[in-house]
């Protein structure tokens, strides 16, 4: 139709480019997290994730450990800096290039590669770009070689170490299982309760129906914050306390308004003929519901299930209040927000990895079931 207006080509270029720009802007932060989760701690702190595919200059510290030979007027130690014990593991992937070296931690790159440096007490040190080093001393150096600092180009390295750390050492495995444990019952249970109620509100006639629907619409927006103190106190009086049972109940209660509202909106739109002919054939309301309404409402049920799953998986507030704060029952969001950000605030690799572990499942659910999610959103917004 834009053809008619005669603006097609120019405008469509602008459109395409602006959408590309928007999509890139939207993706950059997530890509940064994803890339960072595969980088080594040292690399993260010296170069941005956008430089991840390129080499970086890293500073290393080692100690010469070659054979000491007596020569005229002193002693000599020769070898390759990349083979010395303290840094060998970093260069297993192949040698690198030394750009500068030094003998003091405060000036680790004091001398350019290849120079012969006087390092005092009649000692000299020379480190070449290819890593070979020559150390000379007038006196017998003893059994410890010289301390050497050097800067070398390090090829880009990607590693799964962060994932290994996060999943084994940091308690994220436990948190992952806890999240799963909170999420599944909290998704399944409200569905059934809501489905029956939605059927009654959609297809049964009784006084007060309009009022109840209005109540559900009103409850959709009640801030959760109100429920925290009274419900936690009630749970404590009932002996549930802060526990998994408590959070399942809480999520069930908090998820119900949306569930009832969504399902009722969908069920009301089901064809009246089917329902009436089933009634004429003698089906009871219960049979009608189980055999006809439930199967037909599958898209709405799926939509709500995805919503509730994402919401409970991603929730921080309810978990902080209704679950105990000990390590054994922390869910991932609490773990990240309270433990990792607090105590390991500087360890970006671990943070990125933990975040990515926690968003991986929702992302999979999102991309595989987007169709249902969109349908649910469209039905769920008050028109």
């Amino acid at each position, binding site marked *: 139709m834009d053809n008619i207006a005669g603006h097609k080509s120019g405008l469509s270029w602008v459109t395409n480019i602006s959408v590309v720009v928007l999509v890139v802007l939207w993706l950059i932060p997530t890509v940064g*997290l994803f890339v960072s989760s595969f980088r080594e701690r040292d690399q993260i702190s010296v170069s*941005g994730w956008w430089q991840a595919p390129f080499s970086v200059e890293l500073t290393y510290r080692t100690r010469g450990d070659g054979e000491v030979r007596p020569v005229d007027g002193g002693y000599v130690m020769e070898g390759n800096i990349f083979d010395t014990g303290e840094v060998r593991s970093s260069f297993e992937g192949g040698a690198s290039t030394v750009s500068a070296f030094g003998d003091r931690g405060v000036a680790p790159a004091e001398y350019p590669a290849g120079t012969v440096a006087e390092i005092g007490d009649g000692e000299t040190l020379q480190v070449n770009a290819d890593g070979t080093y020559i150390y000379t001393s007038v006196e017998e150096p003893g059994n410890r070689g010289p301390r050497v600092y050097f800067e070398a180009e390090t090829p880009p390295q990607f590693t799964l170490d962060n994932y290994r750390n996060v999943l084994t050492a940091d308690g994220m495995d436990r948190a992952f299982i806890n999240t799963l444990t909170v999420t599944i019952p909290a998704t399944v249970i409200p569905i059934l309760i809501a489905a029956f*109620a939605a059927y009654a509100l959609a297809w049964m006639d009784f006084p007060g129906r309009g009022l109840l629907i209005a109540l559900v619409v009103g*409850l959709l*927006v*009640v801030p959760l914050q109100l429920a925290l103190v009274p419900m936690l106190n009630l749970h404590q009086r009932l002996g549930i306390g802060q*526990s998994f049972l408590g959070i399942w109940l809480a999520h069930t209660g908090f998820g119900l308004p949306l569930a009832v509202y969504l399902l009722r909106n969908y069920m009301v739109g089901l064809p009246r003929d089917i329902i009436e002919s089933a009634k004429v054939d003698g089906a009871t309301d219960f049979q009608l519901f189980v055999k006809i309404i439930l199967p037909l409402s599958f898209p709405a049920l799926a939509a709500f299930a995805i919503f509730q799953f994402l919401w409970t998986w991603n929730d921080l507030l309810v978990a902080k209040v209704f679950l105990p704060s000990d390590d054994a029952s922390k869910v991932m*969001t609490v773990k*990240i927000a309270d433990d990792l950000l607090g105590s390991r605030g500087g360890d970006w690799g671990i943070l990125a990895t933990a975040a990515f572990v926690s968003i991986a499942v929702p992302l999979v659910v999102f991309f595989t079931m987007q169709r249902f999610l969109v349908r649910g959103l*469209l039905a769920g917004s008050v028109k």
Partner: protein
Amino acid sequence: MAPRAGFVSLKGFYMPVIVQGLLTIVIGVGGCIGYFYLSNLLLDKVIFPAKGENAGRNINRANQIRPWLFLFPAIFALGLYLVYPVVGSFWRSLYGRSPSDWVGFDNYVQLAASNEFQQAFFNNLLWVIVVPAMATFLGLLVAQLTDKLSWGNIAKSLIFMPMAISFVGASLIWKFVYANDADIGLINAIRASLGFGNPIDVMQIPFWNNFFLMVILIWIQTGFAMVILSAALRGIPEETIEAAILDGANPWQLFFRIKVPQIMGTIVVVWTTITILVLKVFDIVYTMTGGNFGTEILPSYMMDFMFRDDGRATAVAFIIMIVVLPVMIWNIVQARKEMR
């Protein structure tokens, strides 16, 4: 026999939690089906059997009661978890730190006088104005731009993606943009490449740090606005657009004069939905700044008192409720109009 937290605190003892979870599903689902089935059976066969001399009357009576059988679990849970707390929170807010210490409206008076509360309220006001406006605007923009694009669905799906990410996860993602280090934070890297020497911590710039936090929520919510508005745009009857084009409307006029007025209702819905959300989300402020540097908002301010001073916490919660109230009433009025 309530499963207690202590039950799962043994080290390396994962199974019980999962078993509990599975058991809860079985009990929950089985219990629901059992309840609905048995209560219907009881109603039809025992209390009001559809036979004998009163068969006709009994069927009628049973059908009058049945809706309430279907509704009971939902009404019970809603009443307990959402209606009771409104009253319960208000009542609790009239007491001090200890639940037996009646203070009347003291909590509210002290809140109103405290600088922190005023700051939180003001910041929340900023959030309520900026976030829904920006998210709706960007959502509408993307919806319109991708409408006729061959790869529009892929673009939409990518912009929609942050909806799946938790607020905590999103905050961490944005830490990699905002970090106070040119080798980690994108903003400081860009500054460095433009020649600014020292990195800045955008989370500590007074006043403007609020906007940097808002960007995170806008980033998440634009997808939501886009999906709904995109469907609304598709729902506009072709004839009106064709007529406008034949009358010589240019694309701008077409969009602002023809399309936007027709989807105004949906825009308002998206706007209010995001507004409500803004009043609930404490995660972003909590993870990014912990409410420091003048970024406190009401939900995060409330969590400062949670577990410390229930009276003050419930007072803040009730104030949030009062702020939400107009939207709630508007929603109910709209829904009732819709039903008639």
